[in-house]
Structures are given as structure tokens and as C-alpha cells.
């Protein structure tokens, strides 16, 4: 009698276990089916792009807008410097760095940099006609604390990094001279460009090899002025 009871108890446990296992398998299957449904329903098919040509006028990326200076009547015959303005906003659109370029009558150009909607004057420089200053597309750091500008020196590119608030850096300098720091720390590398920011305080530097191919990439730390070679090419 005892043996029979034990036998029945074991069978009961076995039944319950089998039932639970079947329930679990059904649960897993139904969850999997949900994913399939999501994938099928939410990724609608789309016809291949039509072969019929369409005319799409290109919309250029931000370009300088010319602001003509009013001509006073008394100096109508004198040289009228042309002034152009360009600007670049931060990723979230809350900050702006602006560049005003004034063409002087002696062939030089004066470049004025301001940040935060023209309220903070940052930098001014007059350059000969074969040199220029520009604001790159990726000028702002992701946290909007820094920005950098580029000076085309005719023979190369100088990159200057500023605090957004216009304050000098810890070393007293108004800006960090990325190009100078880079040439000191990586004398054999051929600087190509500072492409943008990999993080809040890291500028990506691209280099090229002597044959023109893509060289090692570097990080430039702001404000510690560190130069770090990378295993990954950016």
C-alpha cells in the first residue's frame, strides 16, 4: 500500500513537472512569435527606387551670407570694404560661433570671431589674401564648452581651440594651439585635418601618409593638450 502511494506521488510530481515544462515552452514560443510579428508588421516592404529620373535642386550646406555695408554719401568714391558673415551652431542649436570677414583695401582680410550669438568677442586676425580663417562644421564640442577654428596658412592648417565663455585656459593662453602641440608630440605624422569631436573633450585628428593614403588617427585632449595615437582610424 505504501509503495503504491509513493508511486502515485511520484507520478503526480512528474505530471506537474511535465505540465510546467509544456507551459514554459509555450511561453517561450509565444514570446518568439511576438518578435516575428513585430518584425513582419513593422518593417513594411518598399519598392525599389524608381528608374524615372527626377529633378532635385541641390540644397547647399550653410554658405556665407554677404552683408553689404551701407555707403555713406560723403565717402561714395572711397573703398567700400565688403563684409561677409558665416556662423555655425552647436549640435543642439543653443550656441553659435560667428565669423565676420572684412575685405580690406590693401588686399588683406580681417577675421573677427565671436561666440554665443555675437556677445563674446573671441579673436581677431588680419591675414594676407592667400590665407584665411574658417569655422568647421563640427566646431562645437558635444557639451558646448569649447569650439575650434581653422586658419589656412597657405602652407598648412593651424587649429585653435577656444573656451566658449572666452576665458583663457589654465596656462593663461586665450586659445590652445592644436597644430603646434600636435607637431611637437607627433613630429613624424603629417597633419591632415581636425575633423570634429569624438567626445566632450577630444578632438579627432586625421593624418595622412607620405603617399597620400589615410594615416593614423589621434585624439587631442582639451584642455590638457594631450595627443593620443589611436588603433582605430577615424
Amino acid at each position, binding site marked *: 500500500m505504501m509503495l503504491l502511494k509513493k508511486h502515485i506521488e511520484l507520478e503526480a510530481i512528474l505530471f506537474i513537472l511535465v505540465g510546467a515544462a509544456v507551459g514554459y515552452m509555450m511561453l517561450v514560443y509565444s514570446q518568439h512569435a511576438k518578435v516575428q510579428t513585430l518584425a513582419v508588421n513593422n518593417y513594411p516592404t*518598399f519598392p525599389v527606387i524608381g528608374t524615372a529620373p527626377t529633378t532635385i535642386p541641390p540644397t547647399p*550646406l550653410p554658405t556665407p551670407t554677404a552683408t553689404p555695408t551701407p555707403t555713406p554719401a560723403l565717402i561714395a568714391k572711397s573703398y567700400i570694404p565688403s563684409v561677409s558673415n558665416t556662423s555655425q551652431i552647436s549640435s543642439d542649436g543653443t550656441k553659435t560661433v560667428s565669423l565676420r570677414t572684412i575685405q580690406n583695401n590693401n588686399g588683406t582680410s580681417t577675421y573677427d570671431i565671436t561666440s554665443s550669438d555675437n556677445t563674446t568677442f573671441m579673436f581677431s586676425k588680419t591675414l594676407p589674401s592667400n590665407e584665411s580663417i574658417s569655422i568647421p562644421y563640427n566646431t562645437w564640442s558635444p557639451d558646448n564648452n569649447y569650439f575650434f577654428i581653422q586658419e589656412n596658412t597657405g602652407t598648412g592648417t593651424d587649429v585653435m581651440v577656444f573656451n566658449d565663455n572666452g576665458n583663457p585656459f589654465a596656462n593663461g593662453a586665450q586659445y590652445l594651439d592644436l597644430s603646434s602641440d600636435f607637431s611637437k608630440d607627433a613630429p613624424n605624422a603629417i597633419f591632415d585635418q581636425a*575633423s570634429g569631436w569624438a567626445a566632450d573633450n577630444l578632438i*579627432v585628428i586625421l593624418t595622412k601618409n607620405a603617399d597620400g593614403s589615410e594615416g593614423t588617427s589621434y585624439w587631442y585632449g582639451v584642455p590638457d593638450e594631450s595627443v593620443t595615437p589611436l588603433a582605430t582610424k577615424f
Partner: protein
Amino acid sequence: MAKKIKQRKKSAYRNTNSVGRYLQFYFLALFAGFIVYTVGGLFIQSPIPCANSGTCSSDLTMNIDNSATGTFNGHTVTPPKINLADMNNTTNVLGASTSAGEKHIYVDLSTQRLYAMQGDTAVMETFISSGKWDPTPVGNFHIWEKLVATRMAGGSGDDAYDLPNVPWVMYFYQDFGLHGAYWHNNFGHTMSHGCVNMRIVDAHAIYDWADVGTAVSVCNSFSPPDNCVQNNPISD
């Protein structure tokens, strides 16, 4: 004789009794299976379809966490605080006054640019960052989900990332999406794990412009007005 009859009766009773018991066990087992199925469903979530990395776990639902910090490229990043009341304000909608026609987004991987076309008009052209660690899928897709913000995580080792509050997300193929990026500003160069990164302002503008169902074509190269070159496009 009487003893034999009594034994038979006893045996028949035992048989009936054990069949009843088996039925009891059977229903007990059914009940146990039902309990496991229903209660387990509360704890076991559907696996998320995830294709841009072997270890990714993108959240395909809106997910805002204003207290979390993120990780990208081995660095800690601070996500922007997201206030849904502010997020619901639409920007000036692209092409609202001038354009008509079908909306179509083209991503040019060779120049790292995005073109938002409405009919024959380009209402937006901007730099993007496509896949660096994992490729962005080439093909023709549709936006199937729009999320104001969500969390994206994945990768491994030095390439691990965990990014809360990724803004203005529009998934176009599985969990590959167009979205704003607050953790880098290196657009025009590959920087993603397969998604298409944009400046936050650009992502916001295109989010307001595009709809669920808007066509997205990822091209190896795209020359306006009409030439989208796709090498081995994947089927949607």
C-alpha cells in the same frame, strides 16, 4: 467464493480510484502549465530584435532617464535632460510652405550626407555619421517607428556603448535608425554602430518632417537629383 467476489470488487474499486487519481493529476498538470505560462509571461520579456551588434540591446520603446549617465568610446557622457513638454513643440517643419509630393530620405554613405526630398525638392541636406564599428545596411526601407527618445546600448570592450536619452529616433530597418547624437560631434565621418547619427537640431527637424512610412534609402553613393547606387542591398 464470497471472498473472491469481495476481492474483485475491491480490485475494481481500486482501478476506478486510480483512474480518478490519474485524471486529478492530469488536471493538476494542466493547471501547473497554465500557471507557469501566465505568471512566467510577467517576468519573461520578448527578446528585442537587434541587428547592429552581436551584443546590442536597443530599446524599441520610448525611454527617458534624466538621471543616468552614458558611455561611449570608453568615456562617460552626460545625456541631455529631456522634458517631454518641450519635446512636443515642433520646429519649423521643413518644406512646409514650398514643397509637395512624396517624402523620401536618402543617405549617402560615400559622402556621409543625408538628403530629405519632398517631391523634386531637397528640403534638407546635412552631414551624418553612419556605421563605423558595424555597417549601416544598404537598401530601401520605410520608417516603422518614431520615438522622441530612447536608450541604446551594445558593443563590447572598448567599443561598448550605453546611451540614455538618444533623441529623435526613427527606426527604418529593424533597430537601425536615424537619430540625434549628443556624445560626439564628428559628422561627415563614420562614428556609429550602424545607425545614422545627426546633429540634434537636424534630427529634430527631420523627425518633425518625416512620418511613419516615409521611405528611407541608404545608398553607397547618391548624386542628386536621382541616382542612388546600392551594392548588394538587403531586402526589407
